[in-house]
């Protein structure tokens, strides 16, 4: 596990010379901080209720003909349900450790997190990252994009990317903050969320509606699952060393 943490280093400490030294030092730190064996939690985000309410329709990309290649759908597009699954699973649910880590410090993740605008859509739709990681924003379209971050704690970045740029990107530094909305000022349908954590224990459900959090020290935790439209849920989990626990979250938006 600790090697997977270490191998994410690609910044200054990722240089070959430092890798040798840093690897030893970091290895020691990780060894003491996270004990010999760690646990994992994995599971699914499930949906129960009237799935027919959540439909997606075409983005009116004619505003900007350069968005034509977009596959994005407008409407309740933020709620992406895998309706073929049984039970129905949900994409873009952010699962993270909310309580139980105490004051422990964890080896920082430093590899940049990518947020790409492609086909007038944000990829990924929910960005989860550690505060030590830089966020790099790219523009993959032949059009103008304007990224507007609407956070409470971080600064309200609002900048344009008028030309296609998939190489350099624009780098941002963020502090820990619960998910906040990011929108494109030029293409009203474009939106995504960014969540920043002080620890590396978070995951977002992907195309299968599953998540996995690895490398947790054994202990009692409160997990939180967050979805932009469906709200939040919590679960109490206890893990021992070497264990992989399964925890599913079932959202029932109609039950209230």
């Amino acid at each position, binding site marked *: 596990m600790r090697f997977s943490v270490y191998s994410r280093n690609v910044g200054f400490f990722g240089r070959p010379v430092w890798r040798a030294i840093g690897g030893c030092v970091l290895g020691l730190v990780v060894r003491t901080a996270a004990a010999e064996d760690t646990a994992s939690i994995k599971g699914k985000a499930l949906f129960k209720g009237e799935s027919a309410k959540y439909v997606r329709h075409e983005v009116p990309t004619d505003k900007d003909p350069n968005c034509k290649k977009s596959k994005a759908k407008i409407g309740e597009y933020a709620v992406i349900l895998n309706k073929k699954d049984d039970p129905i699973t949900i994409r873009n649910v952010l699962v993270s450790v909310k309580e139980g880590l105490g004051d422990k410090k964890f080896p920082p993740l430093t590899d940049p997190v990518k947020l790409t605008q492609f086909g007038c859509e944000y990829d990924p739709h929910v960005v989860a990252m550690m505060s030590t990681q830089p966020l790099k924003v790219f523009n993959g379209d032949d059009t103008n994009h304007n990224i507007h971050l609407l956070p409470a704690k971080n*600064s309200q970045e609002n900048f344009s990317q*008028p030309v296609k740029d998939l190489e350099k990107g624009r780098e941002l530094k963020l502090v820990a903050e619960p998910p906040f909305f990011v*929108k494109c000022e030029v293409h009203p349908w474009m939106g995504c969320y960014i969540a920043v954590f002080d620890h590396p224990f978070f995951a977002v459900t992907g195309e299968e509606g599953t998540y996995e959090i690895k490398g947790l020290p054994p202990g009692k935790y409160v997990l939180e699952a967050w979805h932009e439209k469906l709200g939040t849920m919590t679960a109490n989990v206890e893990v021992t060393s070497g264990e992989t626990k399964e925890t599913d979250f079932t959202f029932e938006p109609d039950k209230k």
Partner: protein
Amino acid sequence: MTEAHHHHDDHHHHPELGWWRKYVFSTDHKVIGVQYTVTALLFLLFGFTLVMIMRWQLAYPGKPIPLIGGLLGKTLANDGTLLPEGYNALGAMHGTIMVFLGIVPLIVGGFGNYVMPLQIGAPDMAFPKLNMASYWVYFCGGMVMLLSFFAPGGAANSGWTSYAPLSVVATQGQTWWLFGMVLLITSSLLGSINFIVTIIQLRAKGLDFFKLPFFVWSQFVTAFLLLLAFPPLEAAGALQLMDRLAGTSFFMPEGLVVSGIVQPYTGGGSPLLWQHLFWFLAHPEVYVLILPAMGMVAEVIANNTRKPLWGYRLMVYSVIFLGFMSFIVWAHHMFITGMGTRISAFFATTTMIISIPSVIILTALVISLYRSSIRYNVPMLFALAFLPMFAIGGLTGLPLGLPAADIQLHDTYYVIGHFHYVVAPGTIFAAFAGIYHWYPKVTGRTMNPALGKIHFVLSFIFINVVFMPMFFQGMAGVSRRLFDQTFYQHGLDVQGWTQLSSWGAWMLGLSQVPFIMNFFMSLRAGRKVSDNPWEATTLEWAAPSPPPHGNFATVPVVYRGPYEYSVPGQKKDFFPQHLAKAEA
């Protein structure tokens, strides 16, 4: 005039001042005038540099700016390529710097301060310390504007007009802009009071109002415009600051949703209120930009035609009328905000009326050339070029003043072309004429005429290359303030003109090199000349060059009008105002 006399005596008893009091914190109108001129010229150069950067993006959108692209920082540019936010910040600051920090301080603060007291035979301004305060407040305002580039989010980027609600929700630079503006307005108010009192109280014996040089008249009317038009903007600026900082809603209507977030403004403010307050200043401000320029051109033309100005009184009445009318035309900037027929017809009518005195002044200046003897020196070349350039600027105002034609042309490049023709080859050429004309008075040396002529020819060619294409773009429907006009088909089709215009701007920048060289080299190397090298008639030429503290060796007395050239029966072709009898 005993008062003037007292002042005069006082100055003689002053002990020798230290270097700081003499050259930096001076109360001498001449030192302050030079301070204003030099500061304003530096700001003009800076403002012009901003636009040369912008013109790169306009001509070659999305390409990195050569040479200085890397210096622009992260907020304005990305890897040397200008960003829209950078473009807007440069655009807003170009307008603000050119108008409030460049041209007005140059032609009012600089020329007004230096030349006006000399022309009326006064030893200094009426309130010398106020005068000094005026300069230093202006200086601080300028510094605030410059520092605002380093504010988070960059300098103000809502245009020099700062229309609410955009300016209220804009980045921090706007707050700096408002503070800077409050300082600049305060400076103008201090200056204008001083000008008015000086012109009324400190005229030399025998100098009636209708013997005043036309330049003094233009400064007199300008001072009233500044005094009466700026307070509404100062108030509006304070209100906008309140909207930004204290959450009031003077200019913010209810129910605004900015970036998807419902704004907390309640109480039903009006964004149009800002526009009314702003243009109530900014239209008279247009005449603040042009009247002193007309004054300078009149001085230079009278002197170099060796003939009295044609229709001097008519010109004076026209300039007073212009000043008065400039207060009731402001809403012609707002025709397409949703005006009804009656109100737009009213403002269109006043706009047509105000064009008449401008036509009169221009015609008078041209008729002054008739049966004259034109001396083609450098100041005269600039003054003559002013006439057709100002004519183009003025005439193109006509379709903009007709509300129906304005529907198509409003806020397009046509407007940019129009007012730049008034201000750039208009006012700035007049200012060049003034600099070449009065340089011998300030330094005792002339500027090099050969370099001056090179400067003139190149400037005249390239300034037209810059601004003429803008009319073509405007007719094609290209809106102003576009970061990249090729986004639109109609912008793409006239992109060639944009590129030509940009090249004109950079060449125009190069054309200023001979001027800058000339300006500094002539301080030492310029030909030494007598007190009255142009053989002029007005009082400033009766003082030594450069004039000492207190200006005149003996208090001048005025016997005749300002432009007594080629008086029949005289030996010389000029008859100065202060001479009782013609020289033998």
